[in-house]
């Protein structure tokens, strides 16, 4: 019985020690600016201008408009997934059409279906386009 009591106490203390969240406990007492900076950059990494470009695209379009995204990375896992998801988040109310899907298949039909082409740091296929607005290394084009 005594052994069981000692073992219980030891296990209980071990559980407490293993789950104490010392990082959270320290947070109120440390300089949090580096952490804030890191999380500020977490979503967009090296593509800091991209959300600002998307915001500009949002301002230049209306709800219901369809927009295809052209990004520097046209492979799903190389960055297109980020460009498409982030575009969809900033351009809610519009229909954002992907030009690449998760299986890396190209969807040129969406390029021709979309009312606008939002191209950021990337070239679009040759053709006649009207520039609707430009910002942060990108342009919103209308065919």
């Amino acid at each position, binding site marked *: 019985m005594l052994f069981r009591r000692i073992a*219980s106490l030891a296990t209980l203390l071990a559980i407490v020690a293993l789950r*104490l*969240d010392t990082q*959270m*406990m320290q947070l*109120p007492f440390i300089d949090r600016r580096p952490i804030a900076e890191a999380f500020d950059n977490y979503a967009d990494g090296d593509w800091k201008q991209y959300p600002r470009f998307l915001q500009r695209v949002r301002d230049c379009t209306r709800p219901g408009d369809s927009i295809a995204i052209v990004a520097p990375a046209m492979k799903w896992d190389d960055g297109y997934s980020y460009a498409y998801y982030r575009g969809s988040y900033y351009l*809610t109310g519009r229909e954002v059409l992907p030009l690449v899907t998760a299986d890396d298949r190209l969807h040129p039909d969406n390029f021709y279906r979309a009312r606008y082409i939002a191209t950021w740091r990337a070239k679009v296929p040759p053709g006649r386009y009207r520039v609707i607005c430009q910002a942060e290394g990108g342009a919103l084009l209308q065919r």
Partner: protein
Amino acid sequence: MTAALIAALSLLVLGLPVALALDRRAAGPLLLGTAFLYGSGLIFLVLMLLSIVHVRWTVVTVTIVGLLGCSVAWLLSRLTPRQPSNQATQQPRFHWLDLATLVTMAGYALYATIAPLWEWDFWAIWGMKARVFLDAGGIDWRFLESRWNSYVHPDYPLLVPLNFDFVALLQGGWSDRWLGIFSVAWAVALLLIVRDLAGREASPIPAALATLVIAPIAASRFIGIAEGPLIAFGGAAVLFLRRAMLFDDRAAWRHGAVLLGLAASVKNEGIALIVSVAIAMLFVRRRDLVRLWPAVAIIAPWMILRVTHDLPTDIASGPIFGRVLVRVPHAGEIAGILTRTLFHPFFWAALLLGFLIVPAARRRELFVLLVTAIQLSFYLATYFATPNDPRWHIATSWSRLTEQLAVPITFVVVLMLARTAAGPPETEAS
């Protein structure tokens, strides 16, 4: 920040009559914790109802219907007989160890609000839906049905996005800067419930220790996504149902069943939790199974909408049985990956050791053990059925899924070990 704080406080106030309608004797931490969770659930049901009847969301429409629901709950609470004061209605006594939990949660509040929400799953799933629905003034079925938007998991229930929409309606537009306050509120609500329930069956030190150990689990690091609220609703539901069975507590049955339905309204794992609880009850308390009806009633509208709008579930897409058959021979490999990538492995080992040290408790806590094991088996089955690469799926979800399971089992093991370490059995509230 003001709008998010006002929204959280509004949900607390909206939820108070609901909590009292279910449990007239509720007071102190338990009342505060359950009130916020019910407020959060009520606003989800209000926004969903408005969408179903095609009424555009505005502050006015949401407030009117919210107050209406609140008034019905208040009237019901007047009809519920008040429990006479006894040991079961006593407020928990606090201990200086609770300060450690308080500091942990202060740190968590700073962490959750340190920057605009950064999680990929926030802006690609939970926040995305909230923002789309806000623009549409209701649930945008066309968006959910679009084949280009399958990445948002259209089949997931909508409690979390609709809570974010409530904040956006109050602040008059979308901003993800302070939505982390809701992650804090869900976590604090769970801890208030845990502290109160633990205090009813243990002395202040073990109750404070159980809350301290559960705090980092409740304080999910995945800010702005559904893990935190699922842990809160699901953990609280299982703990109330456990209490209902151990102490024949009728109010705990009601809390447990309603919170279970709300857990199912957060994420598909919550729907699986209803099934896990039902199966566990078949073994432990078959005659009380019918008491879970509120859980089914709460999730039923979403399940019907999901079917009528043909919203796909990625796990179930394609030849599911074929995938399982192909992966069964690789079960050892999958088990190896799960073992290697288990989050906090020594903690789980210590919990297991706890049950080995106190074998008599295994029978007493059979319900929690069974729920945990059955839910775990569902998660494991998912890795065999997933249309994705199982290694990728495990790497991106296993740590989150194990945390979802951890609250009830941690609660019972900590209290059980404390009871055994203390020696003679303590008096328990009944």
